[in-house]
């Protein structure tokens, strides 16, 4: 299958920005997909067995649905998502001029809901927000990640990098301690991956549902017994931005499946 090949061949020769010690060079970056067993891979590869595709379909219906006091659907302004949304998720979080800071794809969708549809924003982790986000991100499947290239984002990428390398919580571990220094090892039997953000929102078998990246990051924070940042917190957005820039060149997989 074409998609599988795209992931297997994800060793990209990108113009590398300066890497800091310990950072994973572009050619060695691997999606969480490459750490999974054959059954989970097969589940992701086949759209008829990938449970995330049900959310994508729900998102497609929402895309067409008029909403809010403007009585407008996403499609009324953005037309066919296959062309208008292709590659968009691969460069999010993106700098938003009105906010003066990066916004995630979920936040961008809610800005459209509030500003353009005049509807109430969808709560984080709600079915409808996950579905819209999965639908939009799915249009970028196979598109290499480029988030973080915008020079205005530089200070936020740096901030996210600092969070990634900062030890935190009662267990006093940094994200890098596991996802940079110890990937390919096992934490109580579970393989540790590089923590690359290729497939969000994604279907996690452990969750039995689709979940956002923020849900994943918050659970890693809780895992080291740190205080997890709230959904949408600027620190979490900066971390997401850094992680996306760190996954530069890997193709998007939304909706991915993970154990």
């Amino acid at each position, binding site marked *: 299958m074409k998609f599988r090949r795209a992931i297997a061949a994800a060793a990209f020769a990108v113009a590398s920005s300066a890497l800091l010690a310990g950072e994973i060079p572009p050619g060695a970056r691997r999606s969480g997909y490459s750490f999974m067993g054959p059954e989970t891979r097969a589940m992701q590869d086949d759209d008829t067995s990938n449970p995330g595709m049900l959310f994508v379909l729900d998102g497609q219906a929402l895309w067409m649905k008029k909403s809010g006091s403007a009585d407008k659907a996403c499609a009324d302004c953005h037309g066919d998502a296959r062309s208008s949304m292709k590659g968009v998720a691969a460069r999010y979080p993106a700098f938003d001029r009105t906010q003066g800071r990066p916004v995630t794809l979920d936040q961008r969708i809610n800005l459209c809901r509030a500003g353009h549809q005049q509807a109430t924003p969808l709560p984080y982790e709600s079915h409808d927000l996950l579905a819209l986000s999965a639908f939009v991100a799915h249009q970028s499947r196979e598109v290499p990640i480029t988030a973080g290239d915008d020079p205005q984002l530089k200070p936020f990428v740096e901030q996210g990098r600092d969070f990634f390398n900062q030890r935190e*919580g*009662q*267990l006093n571990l940094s994200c890098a301690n596991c996802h940079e220094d110890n990937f390919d*090892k*096992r*934490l*109580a*039997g579970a393989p540790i991956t590089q923590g690359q953000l290729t497939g969000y929102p994604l279907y996690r078998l452990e969750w039995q549902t689709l979940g956002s990246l923020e849900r994943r990051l918050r659970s890693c924070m809780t895992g080291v*017994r*740190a205080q997890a940042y709230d959904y949408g917190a600027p620190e979490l957005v900066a971390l997401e931005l850094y992680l996306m820039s760190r996954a530069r060149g890997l193709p998007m997989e939304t909706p991915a499946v993970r154990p």
Partner: protein
Amino acid sequence: MPYRIVGDGIPESLTGSPGDAARGRALVLARSTTCILCHSGPFPETRFQGDLAPDLRDAGNRWSASQLRLRLVDASRFNPQTIMPSYYRNDDLVRVGRNFAGKPILAAAEIEDIVAFLATLRD
């Protein structure tokens, strides 16, 4: 509770009395104690063990009770870059979760139980 470091160990029990090795074994195996996330050991009943750290199989040969106690209290004394948490420390930590703030990971009596168990791991 205060403790006194002598050389590369803490010679005296944190509680003033010896720990219980059987309770120590159960603690090491409990996921919430976290050892087994990183370590493996002679625990045939547990399938899910970690490989981020040395096997505990013969820890009692390699280390004295005094050294084991200091390792659990503050592993960074042996290796400043270690990923092994300091189980008896509650300062100098960043953004500790609300439910854990101000508390060490383990109580003094639990550390003594684990030290007693690790000391039995010899071949």
